[in-house]
């Protein structure tokens, strides 16, 4: 996706999956990590107003 951040308008009850669909027409790559409000979660997580959703690749720290 290559974006640092963006604001999305989503329907009530929308999930992380719906948020991804709004920013990309590609399937979410299998190894993508997902966080909502800086906590790891999965694609079925239901979002609330103001939530911060992050999609990122496998981590390589340490």
């Amino acid at each position: 996706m290559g974006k640092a951040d963006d604001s999305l308008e989503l329907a009530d009850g929308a999930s992380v999956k719906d948020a991804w669909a709004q920013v990309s027409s590609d399937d979410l790559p299998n190894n993508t990590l997902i966080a909502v409000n800086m906590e790891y979660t999965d694609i079925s997580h239901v979002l609330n107003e103001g939530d911060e959703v992050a999609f990122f690749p496998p981590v390589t720290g340490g």
Partner: protein
Amino acid sequence: MKVVVQVENFDPWVEMKNYQDANIPAGKHGGSVTFIGSMRDFNEGVDGIASMYLDHYPGMTEKHLERVCQEALDRWDVMDAFVIHRVGDIQPDEAIVLVGVWSEHRSAAFDACRFIINDLKHRAPFWKKETRPEGEHWVEKNTQDDQATNSGS
């Protein structure tokens, strides 16, 4: 417990001593285990890596590291845990990460230190970009620790 994410280079031995002097009661710990991760000038069969840039997710990275340190303190009989992790530009031979754990007996400190560094390497949101002879390269995955117990990942 303390977690620091910083741009500045640091001396891990000085940091361990300073943290111990300030936070670990004298005469109460029987062992400390220290893991120091340093930058190599080679990786994945490529030599001559000139430098590295470490990106992170400000806020989540610190929160994640604090959670894993707390989990280690809850799970093993350890007295304290201390983590420093660099971000930004790093040169070969510089320390990238320090994990220090103190306990009454060695076993708990070894186990907790290994748990923290393994979770950090596989779950904490950091990303390495190397400057290789042929150009910049994002590292795609870390090596696995074959001896890992339950790293939480």
